[in-house]
């Protein structure tokens, strides 16, 4: 696990800055936000959803949310885990999808990011039918939800930084 606090890094908050100090008034939030990031992207047991796939899914969400800092962050993480760039092409380029399992994952990323209220039982059934375990389905759901959370916290911190 890294010593860098990911949210401080993404929001550009140096140690000791006013907003970094404000965040520390919520020590449980700082601790478990970082802890969530650690276990979502570097789990001890990935349940069959690999770290590279997790980074690729997160990059796709950052694209959908049009967040440049998040995109750069996940692009770098993915590049380290997927040196061939094969996964990156499926989320950033217009490349035709590669195989049914990954197609199903990306379709779910898009659905849950853009329109969680329109998800149906068949969407989960599709993931299970494509070969994801229950563990992987829940991990994917947590990941999508977490990156959506992360983008909102980041947006709020940027607002406060710009308004100071």
């Amino acid at each position: 696990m890294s010593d860098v606090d990911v949210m401080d890094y993404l929001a550009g908050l140096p140690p000791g800055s006013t907003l970094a100090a404000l965040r520390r008034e919520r020590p449980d939030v700082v601790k478990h936000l970082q802890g969530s990031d650690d276990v979502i992207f570097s789990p001890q047991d990935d349940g069959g959803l690999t770290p590279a796939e997790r980074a690729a899914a997160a990059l796709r969400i950052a694209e959908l949310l049009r967040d440049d800092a998040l995109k750069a962050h996940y692009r770098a993480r993915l590049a380290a885990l997927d040196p061939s760039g094969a996964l990156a092409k499926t989320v950033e380029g217009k490349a035709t999808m590669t195989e049914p399992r990954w197609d199903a994952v990306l379709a779910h990323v898009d659905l849950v990011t853009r329109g969680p209220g329109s998800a149906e039982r068949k969407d989960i059934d599709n993931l299970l039918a494509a070969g994801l375990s229950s563990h992987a389905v829940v991990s994917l759901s947590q990941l999508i939800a977490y990156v959506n959370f992360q983008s909102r916290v980041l947006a709020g911190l940027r607002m406060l930084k710009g308004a100071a």
Partner: protein
Amino acid sequence: MSKPMRDFIHGELEWRPWVAPLDLNAATEAQLVALKVTPSNRAVGAYSLVLAHDPEALSERSPLYNGIMFGAKGLPRADRELGAVAASRVNGCAYCASVHALRFTQLTKEPEVMERIQADGVDAALDPRRKAILDYSAKLSRDPASVEPADAAPLHAQGLTDLEILDLTHAVAMFAWANRLMQTLGEPAAPAAKDNPP
């Protein structure tokens, strides 16, 4: 938003999973440990048993949720609930909106606020402080990339401190998370009719 917001005010919906809940008899030690920490005492049951398929994520998310919604001082709890309701309305999560509308009303004893949100959604006419909270919460939920430094001005004008704005941001963001789990791993369902056993 394709699902109706039934029973929005009453907080009486149940939740039916689409992923088979963990069988406690087959649970690992890590899963059992993760299940001891639950986000709220109402949410034990099928929802936690589904999330326990990934015990590492559940173990971090539960204390994060509690820190955000119940952390001492800062933004009053009712205002965090208002942020949660606004996010849930934008995200179309009837279950979440229902539960948190009820909590808001329990905390404030002002049922008319949630009645207005039930009728008019995030465009509801509220007092200026709550309106500022509602507007920011809805915008942050809808499109975080559109949030600008100027969006802090109405909140500051209503006397919110930066810590209170951070608390509100955390609450709204937490429901970007919660709404996405609740609506995509299962669905709200009418409570089992207690008076009419099958």
